[in-house]
């Protein structure tokens, strides 16, 4: 029998069943994540059934979709959510602090070796710190809130080995778009994607978040990085641990003879900028092969790419330049914490001087929710994770997904052009 993959080990460690070969396994979870839009859907059932929360300290809640609300209806939904959470005295209710997935990875609840479920598909992003995390719907999450448990099927694992050296102009977004090109939308359906960073340049933590985030676009249940020194450094820094102090979590690496369904090696040495054309995140081509495409809108934000390194990349690109007059460039830091760091680093000023506008940390136009929503004629280059038809606004609008650096370059040029990375700006 072959050895265990990371998700096998983490599920075993959380399993409540004696029978470890069962098709469905009952597991305990370490944390639950919820936001205004999906949690609001479960409140009536929660109250009607007279339920209580199994462990309030393990639940992280935030309002990120309607923050602040743009319509009276959304204000009512937001108030319902906030009223419910306050009524229960939830200790980890984070008001207007940013996108839930970013808040989760900024929080001590998210530890290596943990098992986390959340009422949103991009909960998978916590995989970037060696956590098996996955999104579920409101009904599943209600079940978990009441019991601290859920049911899981043990997923087969696809291992992805990143090798070579990532060129400085490429980032995590280009890596995951390339993976989407190779595997296709749904190519890792029901699978656990297990990422191994064997590059000489090492993938920084923020790049890993982008990769794990979009693992769900490939259909994966988990998108988990093997724990290494980058994981450890991130957790130590976040949790305020000194060099000798033990980590709060349990970093997991797979058994040496782990049984994988498939192993993919991705040499990043020659990886150039990638873009996903409408209307699928799997519709990926190198920027250099894209027909010139004029844009009206540029969006840097979302849980996929609104972190400090993303804002830094964009600031680097636009410093001393002007956003093209045909383009509206909206920037949304993934959390208030990220926003404060970007302020301190001077990136906010650089981007604002160039003509970009900052919105409050929230989902914004990513889900077609708020300021920056697209009209019929709009063409957007976006660092968000989904370019599904109609998602960012009008059914006829078009979204191209790309890295923050590509978003910034296109915002200056007024177009995504094949020479975006060939000519000096």
């Amino acid at each position, binding site marked *: 029998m072959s050895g265990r993959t990371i998700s096998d080990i983490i599920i075993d460690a959380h399993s409540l069943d004696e029978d470890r070969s069962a098709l469905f396994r009952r597991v305990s979870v370490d944390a639950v994540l919820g936001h205004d839009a999906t949690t609001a859907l479960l409140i009536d059932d929660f109250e009607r059934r007279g339920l209580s929360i199994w462990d309030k300290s393990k639940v992280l809640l935030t309002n990120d979709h309607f923050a602040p609300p743009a319509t009276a209806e959304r204000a009512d*939904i937001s108030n319902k959510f906030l009223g419910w959470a306050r009524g229960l005295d939830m200790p980890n209710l984070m008001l207007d602090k940013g996108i839930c997935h970013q808040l989760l990875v900024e929080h001590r609840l998210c530890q290596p070796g943990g098992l986390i479920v959340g009422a949103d598909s991009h909960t998978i992003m916590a995989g970037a710190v060696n956590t098996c995390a996955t999104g579920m719907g409101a009904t599943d999450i209600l079940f978990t809130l009441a019991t601290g448990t859920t049911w899981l099927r043990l997923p087969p694992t696809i291992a992805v080995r990143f090798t070579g050296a990532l060129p400085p102009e490429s980032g995590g977004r280009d890596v995951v778009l390339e993976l989407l090109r190779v595997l296709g939308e749904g190519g890792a359906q029901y699978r656990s994607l297990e990422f191994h960073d064997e590059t000489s340049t090492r993938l920084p933590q923020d790049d890993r978040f982008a990769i794990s985030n979009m693992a769900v676009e490939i259909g994966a249940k988990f998108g988990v990085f093997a724990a290494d020194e980058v994981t450890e450094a991130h957790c130590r820094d976040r949790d305020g641990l000194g060099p000798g102090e033990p980590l709060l979590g349990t970093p997991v690496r797979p058994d040496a003879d782990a049984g994988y369904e498939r192993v993919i090696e991705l040499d990043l040495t020659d990886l150039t900028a990638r873009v996903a054309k409408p209307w699928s995140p799997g519709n990926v081509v190198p920027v250099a092969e894209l027909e010139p495409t004029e844009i009206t809108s540029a969006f840097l934000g979302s849980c996929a790419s609104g972190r400090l390194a993303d804002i830094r990349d964009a600031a680097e690109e636009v410093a001393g330049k002007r956003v093209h007059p045909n383009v509206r460039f909206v920037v949304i830091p993934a959390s208030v914490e990220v926003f404060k760091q970007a302020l301190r680093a001077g990136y906010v000023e650089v981007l604002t001087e160039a003509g970009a506008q900052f919105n409050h940390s929230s989902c914004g136009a990513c889900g077609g929710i708020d300021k920056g929503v697209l009209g019929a004629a709009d063409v957007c280059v976006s660092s968000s994770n989904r370019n599904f038809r109609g998602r960012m606004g009008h*059914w006829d609008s078009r979204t191209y997904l790309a890295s923050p650096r590509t978003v910034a370059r296109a915002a200056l040029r007024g177009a995504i052009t094949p020479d975006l990375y060939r000519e000096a700006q």
Partner: protein
Amino acid sequence: MTSGTDGATGPVEGRVWRFGDDVNTDVIHPPAFYSLDPDKVRRGLFHGYDPTIARDLRPGDVFVAGRNFGCGSSRETSIRAIKLNEVGAVVAVDFARIFFRNATNNGLPCLTFARPADLELVEAGTRVVLDPVAATLTCADGTVVELVPPGEFVREIWAAGGLLNLLPTGMSAPES
């Protein structure tokens, strides 16, 4: 005869609505129709794709689709919209993981073809009878298409009328 949260898992009879591969939840239910108002949620079903669908659906109709149906968001409003329109079941080559869980948890049968090529036997607009427990789809011309039988755990959720009805006894391990 449609299934619902009353725990019914009997046969469903209705017309076929055909869809392609990778139909995502933003297409099934555009974000603009996200709401706690059931009527707004109901009207949003496939609104951008074809606004006449929600108008012309009849109770018991069956959605038939290709690969990866329901990929994307975890918002259960897409399931609510399908149920509020009284769609009886969804049959696909395969389903996105979260969509399948959400549908099952809410008592909406989702079944896959035993032979994916059989998708081509099921024509849009024809009447079919689908038996979720027997896992068969009978076409208008009498052809019986085999589906993958649902597991014990899925049937248990259907029979209970949804996952939440398992809450009091939900701590017992499912058979597999």
